């Protein structure tokens, strides 16, 4: 996929103001997403992946988080690229819902309890696309059918509390798709669901993406989900992308010790029982994510890294090209 990207984030730095000090939650971030492509953003809690997705939407609370450097170029339905960091509130509102839509983690709370499902799906179509009540209601029922909800006519008349978690997540996806966005941001959409429903939702997202040709920015901490759904993956650590490449390349030949650690930490069926019998604990990455307020000198992963040498603690490594578009932010990538 070498088409012009619809989303091109370059040199993005997001700053949070905490107790009078400025803390960079995301820095030096470069990401592109081509039309119809799925990019997965992976990382532990606090690595900056949700901040990245919220900053694309411009949904970070004013005065708390803001863009300090860089640009977010977005090419919407209209065709020309706009820098989202420079748009005013009104301009941003035109894009939200219309061109970019978002699916949240918690299907329990992302629907308003006082409106029926159908009403909530129809509403953005009425407002953004200027459709009539009747027209939008019919379209909402069709969307519910598209996301695999049986008996959509009746379900559309129900309130959120009458639906199961998986159903509600399908409904929020239907709502996000209402205006046919070119980019769908999914912020851990399957985390709150049980595993069988997770698989159904992932299948659904893939099917919808293939039908509609929209791009997806998929935020998750689950490597299994990444392998399932994404074309390319960007691994984030302490606010920086540490490794990026196609899913096949990164999973076959991880070039950053953090990625290696993450992949080793995924428990495998059978292996875990084996380890338990031998009395060996499950593999983890020692230590925890450093506080953004006190990032270590040099490579921020160095304190937890088994490969760290003195040179790692001198400077923040740049992203090295390791072949076939794969990049790693590790000075020893050739050795590992």
């Amino acid at each position, binding site marked *: 996929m070498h088409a012009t990207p619809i989303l091109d984030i370059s040199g993005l730095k997001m700053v949070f103001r905490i107790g009078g000090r400025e803390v960079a939650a995301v820095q030096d971030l470069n990401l592109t997403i081509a039309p119809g492509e799925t990019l997965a953003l992976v990382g532990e809690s606090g690595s900056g992946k949700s901040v990245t997705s919220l900053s694309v*939407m411009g*949904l970070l609370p*004013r*005065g708390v988080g803001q863009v300090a450097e860089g640009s977010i170029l977005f090419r919407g339905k209209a065709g020309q690229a706009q820098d989202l960091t420079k748009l005013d509130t009104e301009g941003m*509102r*035109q*894009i*939200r*819902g*219309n061109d970019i*839509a*978002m699916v*949240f*983690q*918690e299907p329990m*709370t*992302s*629907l*308003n*309890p*006082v*409106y*029926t499902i159908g009403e909530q799906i129809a*509403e*953005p179509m009425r*407002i*953004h696309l200027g459709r009539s009540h009747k027209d939008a209601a019919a379209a909402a029922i069709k969307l519910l059918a598209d996301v695999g909800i*049986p*008996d959509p006519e*009746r*379900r559309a*008349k*129900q*309130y959120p509390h*009458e639906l199961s978690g998986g159903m509600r997540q399908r409904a*929020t996806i239907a*709502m*996000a798709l209402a205006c046919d966005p070119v980019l769908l941001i999914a912020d851990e959409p399957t985390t709150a669901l049980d595993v069988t429903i997770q698989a159904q939702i992932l299948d659904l997202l893939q099917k919808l993406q293939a039908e509609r040709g929209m791009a997806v920015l998929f935020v998750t901490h689950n490597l299994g989900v990444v392998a399932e759904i994404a074309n390319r993956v960007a691994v984030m650590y302490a606010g920086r992308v540490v490794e990026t490449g196609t899913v096949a390349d990164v999973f076959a030949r991880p070039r950053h010790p953090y990625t290696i650690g993450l992949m080793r930490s995924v428990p495998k069926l059978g292996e875990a029982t084996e380890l338990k019998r031998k009395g060996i604990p499950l593999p983890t990455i020692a230590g925890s994510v450093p506080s953004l307020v006190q990032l270590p000198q040099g490579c921020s992963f160095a304190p937890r890294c088994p490969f760290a040498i003195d040179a790692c603690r001198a400077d923040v490594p740049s992203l090295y090209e390791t072949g076939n578009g794969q990049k790693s932010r590790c000075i020893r990538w050739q050795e590992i």
Partner: protein
Amino acid sequence: MSAAAAIPVSSKGPTARALGRFITNRLALAGLVVLAAILIAILTYPLWWMYTPNQIDLRALNKGPSASHWFGTDGVGRDVFARLMQGGRISLLVAVTSVGVSLVIGFLVGALSAFSGRLADGAIMRLVDLAMTLPPVILLLVLASIVGTGIVPTIAVISLLSWPVLSRMVRARLLELRERDFVVAARGMGAGLGHLLFRHGLPNCIDILVVYATLQIANAILLEAGLSFLGLGIAPPEASWGNMLNAARSTSVLEQYVWQWMFPGVALVITVLAINFVGDGLRDAFDPRSDLQ
């Protein structure tokens, strides 16, 4: 997915469910019936009662209850029953309107506070604190002596006094709501402030507003009665339950012409009690925890 057959054809919304709980509450239902009877009586009395409130019958001064004057007459020969009905109209009109006004003010101030920045929020809430710390009786008297007597000034005084508590409650609810995923999601879909406030904020505050309004109407009736009793609310010859009670200030009326103050007093007590029962019932009905029982 085989559960599809079990789905009810039409679903009840949260408000419908609350009303369903309300009608199972006997006391509240009784209050509602009494209230309805009072309302019907005071709204239709000119159709079936032979006297008007300011009609003077000089042959019947200070007459006790009889077949022609059910509740007797007052010192200038006006029919107490007609004045009671008219007074009920005025008292309820003042109460309902002032609560309506204070609902609007309270909701808007609460919304402004919740959705604006920390500075504006702080400033507004300190103002509300100030409004709440002023002794209500003194504030009421000062305001009433500034704006004068009559229906509109009385409405103004009562509504100015009663919005701060509501704005507090609305702010608290909206602050919580603002962080909920569906509100963030709505912003993510391009919703503006007005949309957030009136499509998401208002419907999710409806329980607060309904309960507050009901209980506050009872309160406003009492405030109006108090003001009129002191001669600062509704001025005679216009009747209100408060200024009818005013007659009892004279010892002769208090001792000899019991019907002149007893009937408005009883009407006041019954109405306020009925409204409070309804309000309590509504509060229980809207309480999310009552679903668990």
